């Protein structure tokens, strides 16, 4: 069939940051297919040099407006590791609890506001407020709760201020935690409605499978976002987070200002689907039930289903959050100041599961606690090459479709990764 396909999407919409899609094909042959990242780099690793250990968290959470809690938490971990600071169990539990708020907020935003419009054939969530008011209001309520959850524990919903190396600048009260627990219990019906709605639309997700390597933090018995070792679907070996540079093997591609990554294969994937594949056995009961409702299987290799795994995780963090609050309340909140930090020379790594996947921060400090070198490895960095490989596998299978259909399939594929492009370029 003689046919020319020429797609040039300049700045894909409904994603964070700037990415382009370029396709050229004729007579059933692909000449060019590229996922391009033209985002302006901000050079955070260079800017961190000369900053005091007290300022580093404040600087790096600005890498990303959408996952600033992830950056902040990876940062305080890395600084504590470098300076040899042990935090209390209460600090650890409160950080894990706080992080749940960001997962809920981010996943609901992505599935509700950015992905669902594609499944219902509209350009944004705005027309859905009229056509699907009940579920849109459930999305708004769940999103707001995620935000208020973050605000309670982080002091602010974007670029948190309460996380400091050594502990919390401000602690929540027991009354505030009890109130949060009540609101988490109340959001469950909203999440159920969202899950049922997404399940009813799941057949609109393109049926495209491409086996790849999936990487996430793993911790025995926990569906972890905050602790653990680096796990992969390609190897039973688990690596300590301090060896992340051997995992990411970052390199510069001429089509991207963000670095790309590869481990055992030419690309790998991180994010909700990777976590689900590696950690599904540790899900709480309602989250596991939600996965069954959505038809999400651990063997699934369809990148579009990352959005389904995000719905599962939204339920997971609410269940885990309720449990965590119960634990914290049974121990009582101790009014403890951040641990004393004595600056010293050293290098430390921190790692968390950001909503979009595994995030690593590494800093070197001198004797005065001044940062002299930094390396930040972003989830979307680690997904860029995988998006490119998905494009290369998908395109030949759909070349017989109309240009508009091909374009939409590729845009939806990018969106499925929930890419944080400006974050990945940083």
């Amino acid at each position: 069939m003689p046919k020319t396909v020429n797609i040039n999407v300049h700045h894909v919409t409904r994603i964070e940051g700037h990415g382009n899609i370029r396709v050229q094909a004729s007579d059933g042959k692909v000449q060019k297919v590229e996922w391009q990242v033209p985002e302006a780099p901000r050079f955070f690793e260079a800017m961190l040099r000369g900053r005091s250990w007290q300022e580093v968290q404040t600087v790096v959470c600005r890498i990303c407006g959408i996952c600033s809690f992830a950056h902040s938490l990876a940062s305080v971990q890395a600084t504590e590791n470098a300076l040899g600071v042990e935090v209390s169990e209460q600090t650890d539990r409160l950080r894990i609890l706080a992080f749940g708020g960001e997962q809920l907020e981010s996943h609901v935003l992505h599935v509700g506001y950015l992905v669902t419009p594609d499944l219902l054939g509209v350009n944004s969530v705005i027309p859905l407020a009229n056509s699907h008011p009940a579920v849109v209001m459930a999305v708004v309520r769940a999103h707001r709760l995620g935000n208020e959850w973050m605000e309670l524990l982080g002091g602010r919903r974007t670029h948190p201020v309460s996380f400091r190396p050594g502990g919390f600048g401000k602690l929540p009260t027991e009354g505030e935690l009890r109130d949060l627990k009540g609101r988490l219990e109340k959001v469950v019906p909203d999440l159920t409605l969202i899950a049922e709605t997404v399940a009813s639309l799941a057949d609109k997700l393109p049926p495209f499978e491409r086996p790849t390597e999936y990487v996430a933090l793993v911790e025995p018995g926990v569906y972890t976002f905050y602790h653990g070792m680096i796990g992969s679907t390609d190897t039973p070996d688990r690596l300590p987070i301090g060896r992340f540079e051997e995992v990411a093997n970052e390199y510069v591609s001429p089509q991207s200002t963000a670095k790309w990554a590869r481990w055992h294969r030419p690309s790998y994937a991180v994010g909700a689907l990777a976590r689900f594949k590696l950690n599904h056995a540790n899900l709480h009961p309602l989250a596991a039930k939600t996965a069954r409702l959505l038809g999400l299987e651990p063997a699934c290799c369809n990148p579009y289903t990352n959005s389904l795994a995000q719905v599962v995780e939204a339920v997971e963090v609410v269940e885990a959050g309720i449990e965590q609050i119960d634990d914290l309340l049974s121990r009582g909140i101790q009014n403890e100041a951040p641990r004393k930090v004595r600056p010293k020379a050293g290098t430390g790594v921190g790692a968390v599961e950001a909503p979009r996947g595994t995030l690593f921060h590494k800093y070197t400090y001198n004797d005065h606690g001044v940062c002299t070198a930094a390396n930040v490895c972003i989830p979307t960095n680690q997904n860029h090459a995988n998006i490119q490989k998905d494009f290369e596998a998908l395109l030949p299978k759909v070349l017989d479709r109309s240009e508009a259909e091909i374009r939409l399939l590729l845009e939806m594929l990018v969106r499925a990764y929930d890419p944080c492009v400006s974050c990945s370029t940083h």
Partner: protein
Amino acid sequence: MGKPRVAIFDFACCEGCQLQIVNLEEEILDLLTVIDPVEWREASSDHSDTYDVAVVEGSITRPEDEDRLKEIRRRAKVLVALGACAATGGLNKLKNRFEMYEVRQCVYGLDASMPHLATQPAKALHQVVKVDVNVHGCPISREEFARVVRCLARGTMPVTPNYPVCVECKMRETVCRYEYNEVCLGVITRGGCNAPCPAGGQWCYGCRGLVDEPNVNAARDVLTKYGRTVEELQSRMELFNNQEGQPCPRQ
């Protein structure tokens, strides 16, 4: 008068200020009764080449971005700088303390010379085009943004807050960070954020820039009272008030 047509754009930034617009939650639906959003890449696939109000987030770090911003300016009747990166250059200006090729080498190593990695010192929007309204902060206050939008929809120019953050800590009855033996920039920093950082257990790091006429004598009095130095205050100012890129003294 019809509803103003509003377009939102972004340059070098984290897009966290646009997220604050999403974080208005139900109030967005109210705002939609007074404005018509015609382009907002982060949230919608709608596109328009014409608009009345351009809301622009981010700093300018490349020649091609200067050209794009000038084109946005040409099309818009009103240009709003959204957040610290756009209004003052914000944290991005930390980069200006270093030599540009050196920062490329620091981040990209042996690949630093690849042409697509070029960069120039970060600029606020007003260093490239005329800006009509600044919404300060890193991130912005969503309440302030909603106020600005309502003003513009009514055809009035919003007033930029011009009092120090200390005023808002007093109103909230937040214990002064100096009492915790910390150096806080609230004394000289533009308020309007409702001082969430001191209340959340963190000194003000000055993300909204300086008030128009900072009361330097009062700041000196506070430093003296708590036994802190002007140098400590100036060091704190490097993050968000590093206006013209002083070279880094520690390197």
